């Protein structure tokens, strides 16, 4: 099975609001204290799913990442986790792409790899929380997309049976390959890089594909970022006191009762 996984390097989403700032020039969210960016969480789940499919069916896992040179850190991690090949997609004209533009570039890279059976993406990136790029990739490639996927129940070279989450449960869906899946965090726990993988990854340099390599024309943007504002919360709850924890619980009930909330 020839699998491509898309990954994105993001500011650690677990940083509290007072640890991040917005870079005025690029309008990007950056860590105030220079903390290392990480692989987007759902993308790590997608890579883990790809590695498991390769273990079951053989084949190749190629990881592609659209970003600047700093994103090599995330590609190194992907390589160390067990990816067969990693590629950086980087070009000055791609610095401010919206979801449609990013999907266009990633689809061009996947076509360039050629003969791909399955594309695995995280369901959304934790920095933009857009959840769109994967669908632009699928539309560009003319393949079906299923998202969010919480389980791969069956897999063969022709099709997969997956669980697509619904608000109140899930659907079991058979999807013919080639296809794209948007992977959710319920699907697995991503492995840590092995010692051997880390050594191999540290000795290799990911190739870079640019706009001219992929023959991607310039696209008209569909969205223009106006500004980003960090939400710093300053208010605080009214604390309920009592002699014991149980008394606090009862007092809470009384307060909510007085407020007509019970």
């Amino acid at each position, binding site marked *: 099975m020839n699998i491509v996984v898309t990954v994105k390097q993001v500011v650690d989403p677990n940083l509290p609001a007072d640890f991040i700032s917005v870079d005025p020039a690029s309008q990007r969210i950056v860590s105030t204290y220079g903390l290392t960016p990480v692989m987007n969480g759902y993308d790590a789940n997608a890579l883990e799913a790809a590695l498991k499919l390769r273990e079951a069916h053989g084949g190749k896992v190629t990881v592609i990442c659209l970003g600047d040179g700093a994103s090599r850190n995330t590609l190194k991690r992907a390589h160390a986790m067990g990816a067969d090949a990693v590629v950086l997609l980087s070009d000055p004209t791609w610095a401010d792409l919206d979801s449609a533009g990013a999907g266009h570039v990633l689809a061009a890279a996947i076509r360039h790899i050629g003969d791909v059976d399955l594309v695995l993406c995280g369901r959304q990136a934790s920095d933009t929380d857009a*959840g769109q790029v*994967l669908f*632009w990739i699928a539309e560009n490639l003319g393949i079906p997309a299923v998202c969010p996927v919480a389980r791969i129940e069956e897999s063969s070279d022709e099709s997969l049976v997956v669980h697509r989450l619904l608000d109140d449960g*899930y659907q079991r869906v058979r999807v013919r390959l080639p296809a794209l899946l948007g992977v959710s965090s319920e699907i697995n726990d991503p492995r840590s890089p092995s010692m051997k993988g880390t050594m191999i990854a540290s000795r290799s340099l990911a190739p870079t594909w640019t706009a001219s390599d992929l023959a991607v024309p310039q696209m008209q943007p569909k969205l223009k970022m106006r500004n980003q504002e960090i939400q710093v919360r300053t208010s605080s709850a009214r604390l309920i006191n009592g002699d014991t924890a149980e008394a606090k*619980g009862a007092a809470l009930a009384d307060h909510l009762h007085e407020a007509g909330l019970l």
Partner: protein
Amino acid sequence: MAGVLVMGGLCDGAFDRSLLQAATAAAPLASAMGVPLMGALIGPSVSATADAMQCGLEAMYLAEDAQFAPYTADAYVRAARAAIEASGASTVIIPHGGVAREWVPQLAARLQAALVMNCCAVSAEGGQLIATKPVNGGSVLAQFEVLGELRILTIDSGNFEPRPAGQPVTPTRLKVPAQADAQVEVLSEEVQSNQGGRLKEAKKIVAGGRGVGGPEHWHWIEEAAAVLDASVACSRPVADSGWVPSRHQVGLSGTSVAPDLYIAVGISGAPQHLAGITGAKTVVAINTEAGAEIFKRADWGVVDDYKQVLRGFTERVAQLRG
């Protein structure tokens, strides 16, 4: 004729007030642009919802057909496209959540439209459509100019009041030819109703987080919810660990909720969780960590062991409600 189209997909046919909330978000756009406000519904059985959605719309389009259940993105995209073409809309407003996360971006990509999902505010300023949404897990609000001829926004409806009833219009029925999708086939649906009803429409919610300690302790959350007649919810780590099914998850990647009362037990208050409760009216936090972020969002807080607190709380609530 350009226009603003409020559109919703209804897999199970039940009325969803988020449509009226989306209409509230859409109406000022239509007036600012000087174009009509219209509605469209997609589903196996939408006639009753169409009646409930009469809120002074200038046109209403219905795509009602058995092919829309069980949900497939392909059928919803074809129906939505038919509604956009029939109405001539240039701006489409859709309630965010559930399967809309899948079919709406497919619709946008198919029609090469601009899309912003999960908007908490929208406006039209000097002919420019502006959309604001939480990003970076909800710790940042981003504002976009939405460009192009066709613009689609999904709305976090908890931020808007339902639009009141208005002059009814006779709906136009759309013919959407059925077309089997050879590539994606639904084999079965495993759907379970939540205790206390649909999470996104629940008036009271008791939610547990990692601080609950494990699935063997989850009964504390369920018991507190039962005595309050509330729905049960959880934070992302709880769903990821498999303590409870993902359908209970509240947050950016789960369900957005807007209850009158939200009781967060053992939830630290990660931005992505708080982004799912922006519409909650009163938030109570019970946590052993006095410094937890959740206390900055909460109206009421109890800093103590949640089991003892819930024991006292549950007993007292039973008396007060009894």
